[in-house]
């Protein structure tokens, strides 16, 4: 080994390689196929609070954006008949940089056709326990099943406020969420938070109780993943995209186009599906007890 061997860097490489192998084995055993969709896409996602990198040719012609997640293309694969798919890919968010954020990070995203959010919550619990074991990071607290909590209960329990008092004021909702609720979620063991306000999940179906079929898992105060029982109605999806565009316009954010081929795919018929997107660096950080995702990346922006 070279005199100059950077042991810390090599450890990060080994850790990541081990995690990628474990993730692939986990999904392989469950008969998922690995897919790889493009990084440069015609619409990077319309979530009002996401900023994407625009991609241009040397002559300045826009050819699209770096994907903030591979969601649209993966759902097109579901419409095309794929039943169980997963992807390990880079996602890009132009304005996110911090202890738990990098502009470029590794996303694990997977979908199950003819399934719902409960099925992918179970996948999530089993996956995290599987990866922990594969990496030899014993963590008895991540064994399934994880605790469940609705958004309403989380607000009530940790901040002593009702969802009703905040639901119409998004800024107040998220201020309470980041200051009082999220830091206290999943301290003992991961917790799955369900039943989000319908306005906070543009790509999720609405449940019979009027809430979005959306879940997020939190572990030691960090958001680990975000999943949905997917919306499959193309007309409803278009209305929500237009609403998101309107919101973006109102705050002066770039208004990205609607991905028409994605809507076409919903029209062709997307099966009832469950899907989830998990931040791989956050998972590794949490399993290792590190305090930043940069600690588990070979070249985070600050060391690039």
């Amino acid at each position: 080994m070279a005199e100059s061997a950077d042991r810390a860097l090599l450890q990060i490489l080994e850790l990541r390689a081990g995690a990628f192998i474990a993730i692939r084995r986990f999904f392989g055993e469950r008969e998922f196929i690995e897919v790889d969709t493009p990084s440069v896409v015609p619409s990077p996602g319309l979530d009002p609070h996401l900023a994407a990198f625009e991609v241009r040719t040397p002559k300045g012609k826009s050819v699209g954006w770096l994907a903030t997640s591979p969601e649209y293309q993966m759902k097109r694969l579901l419409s095309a008949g794929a039943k169980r798919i997963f992807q390990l890919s880079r996602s890009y968010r132009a304005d996110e940089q911090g202890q738990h954020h990098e502009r470029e990070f590794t996303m694990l995203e997977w979908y199950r056709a003819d399934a719902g959010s409960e099925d992918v919550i179970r996948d999530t619990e089993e996956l995290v326990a599987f990866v922990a074991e594969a990496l030899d990071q014993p963590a008895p607290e991540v064994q399934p099943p994880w605790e469940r909590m609705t958004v309403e209960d989380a607000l009530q329990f940790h901040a002593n406020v009702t969802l009703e008092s905040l639901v119409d004021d998004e800024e107040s909702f998220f201020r309470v969420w980041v200051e009082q609720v999220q830091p206290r979620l999943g301290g003992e063991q991961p917790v799955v938070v369900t039943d989000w306000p319908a306005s906070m999940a543009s790509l999720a179906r609405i449940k019979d109780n009027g809430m979005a079929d959306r879940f997020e898992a939190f572990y030691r105060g960090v958001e680990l993943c975000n999943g949905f029982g997917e919306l499959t109605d193309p007309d409803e999806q278009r209305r929500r995209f237009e609403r998101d565009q309107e919101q973006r316009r109102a705050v002066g954010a770039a208004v990205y186009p609607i991905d028409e081929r994605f809507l076409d795919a919903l029209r062709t018929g997307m099966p009832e599906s469950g899907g989830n997107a998990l931040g791989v660096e956050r998972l590794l950080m949490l399993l290792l007890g590190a305090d930043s995702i940069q600690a588990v990346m070979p070249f985070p922006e600050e060391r690039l």
Partner: protein
Amino acid sequence: MTDTSDIKKGFKMLIDGVPFAVVDHQFVKPGKGQAFVRTRIKNMMTGAVIDRTFKSGEKLEKADTEERTMQYLYPEGEGRVFMDTQSYEQLALSNEQLGDSVHYLLDGTQVDVMLFQGRPIGVTPPTFVELLVTETEPGFKGDTSSNTTKPATLETGLQVNVPLFVNAGDRLKIDTRTGSYVERVKG
């Protein structure tokens, strides 16, 4: 004007006319929600530390502050006089503005004086200072328990807990960040 992207440790901003320094900060962005920068900031006039959450991208006003190295000269009324080591300019701070720092000032001690809009608002003493013990109970013979301490008064009036072997006339190294005893100094 600037915005939250400039926030880092030590960044100084003006809130309602009062200068605050960033002690700690974290970018947070909940899924599907807007981003914030959570901060812990210190009121530079009073020393009080508070938590404050800014919307990411929120406009901030930089505080017009400046730090200058100065030498402590002498007490005057309810305050202390310092001299700029380069320009020899002299200025005074009240004991109230000095807070705990007043206990670390000996003739000639070099400190960093913080000025806000050209006026002094506080000083940062050296991290470690050496002070003489003026008063403490004699050590108890035979007591070897190393965890036991006793109170001592130092030449500036500072009260610290010290090990039993410390006597009046000893010189002690004091950590000014915590106001606590570090070690006895030889000689």
